[in-house]
């Protein structure tokens, strides 16, 4: 029973090990098969998880260490979907950099496995171990383009801040363990009242906030998203962020409902600060990838509104928002990954006249940016509407107003990119490499989903509400 329920995770682990092993024996010209094998493993895991979600699985495994409920399955589906898109875009990207060996795929699969286990954990030991699996793989992925010192710098900055946050998280966990005598989420909160409990909770929340890149733990994000390989930046800004949000929500909502008042106030401030800093700092960026990094800090702020409001409607809205955010953000980073080469190519000026050179890429990027900005007929708008509506309903009207104001601010930088895309005069430059089939598929799927969930948001919202039903 336990092993059968965890089949998707087992497939993933098996594929990762198989890829590592096969990497040793395959001649270099055949390395592309490793990417396809990884894609097959991810797709199988995604299919299995989606089936469990559709069947409404609710299973407590190994004495409650894991809880596979619709909430966990929803986030596992998000993470796996994001990883599949990222993998599709990675194939041509790595080939262009001459780094298309099996390690990348194995690391990516390990990171996904960590994220999957993390969202299903109900025990601090398991949360910590799974999060370390995600983190350590992510550090290595961020530094994967070894010839490029920017990639190494991105990895080092992420690594040092990540390890610092995880040490603080661990210290917080040790205090909670001392207060409650248990590592089980359902027991810890009830026995951790008092000021020491609050300190511990803040330390723990800080560890997860770093992965979400929420202010004041956002410092690594711009450097890392700019310097890491573009597909890795896409992964960190979506799958890793979503998984950390899921764990944070589960810890707060299942373990600490009693301390709800204080942490609600805390996250209201964090969400407001993230929206303000992310959107304002993005205004001044000339490098598009760095701009997207600040934009993703701001997007994290919108999602954190849900933890400030902490009503079921709000949390369901954040699930919806994260699901559609995966498509638009992976998509935006992916388009950039096609354009950039070893010499850069991600400045605003490099996008001039892209609509003439590569109309399909320009159109896709435009869709993603319009959706991130939250214009009508895109999934981004629906997500923001649900979140802001839930905030007003939950008595946080000022937070919704704050969000609307900074959404308007964000129009300036998103539309500045569009101006370069469609109205910039294209200087003569070497043609960008043609997109490959898997990358085209990934980009097409992301574009389609962004539009589709904008026009028909209801089924996804229903799924999010349903996933939430059994959280508490």
């Amino acid at each position, binding site marked *: 029973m336990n092993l059968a329920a965890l089949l998707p995770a087992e497939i993933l682990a098996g594929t990762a090990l198989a890829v590592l092993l096969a990497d040793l024996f395959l001649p270099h010209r055949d390395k592309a098969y490793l990417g396809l094998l990884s894609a097959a493993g991810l797709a199988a895991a995604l299919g299995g998880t989606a089936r469990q979600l559709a069947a409404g699985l609710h299973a407590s495994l190994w004495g409650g260490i894991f809880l596979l409920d619709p909430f966990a399955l929803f986030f596992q589906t998000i993470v796996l979907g994001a990883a599949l898109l990222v993998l599709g875009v990675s194939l041509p990207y790595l080939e262009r950099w001459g780094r298309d060996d099996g390690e990348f795929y194995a690391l990516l699969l390990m990171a996904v496995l960590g994220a999957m286990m993390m969202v299903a954990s109900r025990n601090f030991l398991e949360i910590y171990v799974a999060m370390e699996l995600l983190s350590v793989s992510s550090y290595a992925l961020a530094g994967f383009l070894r010839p490029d010192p920017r990639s*190494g*710098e991105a990895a080092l900055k992420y690594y040092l801040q990540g390890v610092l946050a995880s040490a603080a998280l661990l*210290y917080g966990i040790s205090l909670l363990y001392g207060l409650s005598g248990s590592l089980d989420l359902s027991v810890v909160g009830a026995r951790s009242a008092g000021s020491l409990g609050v300190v511990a909770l803040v330390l723990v929340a800080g560890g997860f906030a770093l992965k979400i890149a929420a202010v004041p733990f956002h410092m690594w994000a711009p450097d890392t998203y700019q310097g890491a390989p573009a597909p890795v930046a896409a992964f960190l800004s979506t799958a890793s962020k979503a998984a950390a949000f899921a764990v944070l929500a589960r810890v707060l909502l299942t373990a600490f409902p009693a301390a709800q008042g204080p942490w609600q106030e805390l996250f209201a401030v964090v969400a407001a600060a993230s929206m303000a800093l992310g959107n304002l700092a993005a205004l*001044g960026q000339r490098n598009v990838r760095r701009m997207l990094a600040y934009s993703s800090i701001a997007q994290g702020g919108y999602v954190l509104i849900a933890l400030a409001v902490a009503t079921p409607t709000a949390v369901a809205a954040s699930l919806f928002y994260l699901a559609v955010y995966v498509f638009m953000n992976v998509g935006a980073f992916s388009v950039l990954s096609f354009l950039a080469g070893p010499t850069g190519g991600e400045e605003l000026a490099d996008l001039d006249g892209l609509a003439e050179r590569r109309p399909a890429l320009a159109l896709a990027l435009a869709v993603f940016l319009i959706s991130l900005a939250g214009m009508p007929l895109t999934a981004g708008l629906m997500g923001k509407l649900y979140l802001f509506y839930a905030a007003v309903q939950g008595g946080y009207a000022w937070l919704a107003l704050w969000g609307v104001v900074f959404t308007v601010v964000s129009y300036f930088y998103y539309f500045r990119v569009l101006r370069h895309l469609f109205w910039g005069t294209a200087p003569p430059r070497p043609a960008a490499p043609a997109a490959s089939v898997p990358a085209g598929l990934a980009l097409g799927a992301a574009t389609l989903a962004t539009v589709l969930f904008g026009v028909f948001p209801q089924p996804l919202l229903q799924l999010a509400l349903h996933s939430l039903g059994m959280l508490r």
Partner: protein
Amino acid sequence: MPSLGDFLAVGAGLFVLGLFGALMKRTAVAVLMGIELMLNAANLNLVAFAAFSGRISGQIFALFVIALAAAEVAVGLAILLSLFRSRATVRMDDIDLLKG
């Protein structure tokens, strides 16, 4: 026989010392050493709580942390080494290619 409070005081001291080192040191290796102190502060807490409450889970947790910290440091030093090869420095102030 030292009391639980003594262990916790040492742990808190280690944590603050490590945090101070991690935030103030200017070379990446020294930052790493500070972070290791923080991890060990948590370990000391876990083991002390486990010993004084008679529950074993804290000691098991500490074993996991030791193994994970080793894995983490291995990756960190690999990153540092590859960066050192291209930039010939581990001083944080010199690692400044990425900025807005």
